[in-house]
């Protein structure tokens, strides 16, 4: 038990050092622009279909589920705004981030883990190429930038899903629907929710990289790296979300 607790703290300590190392290497040359762009493509573009489908379903389902309650109060016209609000403030960021924890963090964990196990990372190091800079920094940066974009995309698709859901039972054209949505939304709804998605992205990238980069030798460690990447990234998302909500509550 004592040893287990010590291991947890050792792990957290090593992870924090890993983050420090990221910031240290971030400003060192070379830039590794090509790899960064490639990672943006892999993390961002390749996740679009998945994020689109989940985003659409979230908007649709949320609308269908909330409708009866609002209808009871005769407040159906609030529906578009309410759905958009919950999507943008909470559901789209968290669900998209969780999807990305499953896809991106585990992908990075498995990729770097297998590179580690097959000595590709060592091979880079001995040919005087900084593997941390080339593999880790680029991926963390790409995730930090792409996850927010994916969330914005999910917001949009989710609102459209809400529109489709709304039109199953009653009719409203999209222009009117949108104006109902944007009447409700304010700076306080959009700004803090966007800021937190950068943190989601950062931690998805860092946890995936950390798990892969520090995988131990042996083939089974690749699976372990991918698995712990998903588990810890998902956990991190909830914790960040909780902190972000508390903080927003304090400030605004």
């Amino acid at each position, binding site marked *: 038990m004592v040893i287990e607790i010590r291991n947890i703290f050792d792990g957290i300590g090593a992870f924090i050092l890993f983050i420090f190392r990221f910031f240290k290497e971030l400003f060192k040359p070379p830039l590794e622009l090509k790899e960064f762009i490639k990672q943006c493509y892999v993390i961002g573009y390749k996740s679009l279909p998945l994020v689109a489908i989940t985003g659409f379903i979230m908007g649709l389902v949320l609308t269908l589920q909330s409708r009866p309650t609002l209808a009871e109060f005769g407040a159906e016209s609030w529906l578009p705004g309410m759905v958009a609000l919950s999507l943008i403030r909470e559901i789209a960021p968290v669900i998209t981030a969780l999807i990305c924890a499953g896809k991106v963090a585990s992908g990075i964990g498995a990729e770097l883990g297998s590179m580690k196990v*097959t000595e590709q990372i060592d091979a880079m190091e*001995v*040919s005087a190429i900084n593997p941390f800079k080339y593999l880790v920094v680029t991926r963390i940066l790409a995730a930090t930038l792409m996850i927010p974009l994916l969330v914005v995309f999910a917001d949009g698709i989710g609102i459209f899903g809400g529109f489709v859901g709304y039109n199953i039972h009653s009719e409203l054209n999209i222009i009117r629907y949108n104006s109902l949505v944007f009447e409700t939304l304010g700076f306080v709804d959009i700004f803090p929710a966007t800021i937190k998605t950068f943190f989601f992205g950062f931690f998805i990238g860092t946890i995936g990289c950390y798990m892969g980069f520090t995988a131990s030798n042996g083939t089974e460690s690749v699976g372990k790296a991918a698995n712990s990447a998903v588990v810890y990234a998902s956990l991190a998302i909830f914790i960040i979300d909780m902190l972000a909500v508390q903080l927003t509550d304090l400030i605004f």
Partner: protein
Amino acid sequence: MKKQTPIIEIKGLFKSFGKDKDVLRGVNINVNKGENLVVLGKSGSGKSITIKCLVRLVEADKGEIKVFGTELTNLAEDELNQVRLRIGFLFQNGALYDSMSVRENLAFPLQRHRPEFTDTQINIAIEETLESVGLIEAIDKMPSELSGGMRKRVGLARTLILKPEILLYDEPTTGLDTITSREISELIISIQMKFKTTSIIITHDMACAKFTSNRIVILRDGVVYTEGTYQDLEQSEDQWVRSFFI
């Protein structure tokens, strides 16, 4: 023969993993310029760790490591990298970058370390190097399409492309059939002739050891147990040493 200063000097090398896991306990190895040194030892005896200490992939606990007369232990990263560029390391399974084709695998170190090269020069260098390991036809294949022997050849080509003066081979023939093993052993010799390199070759394969070695050291319990030429050790009085040659 004139006594020369060795190109690689390892003195009193210690390495342990945790308290009760002493892997190296005072290894001393010298390698002269142009020599092919074979390192034998049971698996887990610390052979790979020893050569990884030579490029500081693994940090030794204690001991001196001099390569080209430079003490590596406290070298800053930039200086260390200068030394690393003069050393080629062939990993056990080639360690090819999975996501890149053979051509890109070879281009990768070149683009970084010879920024003055034009694309044509890079392509010529890639083709020449692949030619010298006899694999020019694989140039546009992905690593996953290559056999074990081919992967090792490409791995070797990737280190050769930077024209290293020292080559470290980690079990170059392990996992290959006898014929391919033989081909790799021949390749090691032909590379040495062509590029005038100095090599440390870790192996279990006695045919390879016999074919490639100028001298053999055997590791046991974290120290160099004995050393000599293949013929010396084959005739050894020591039962344990002779057991390698059966």
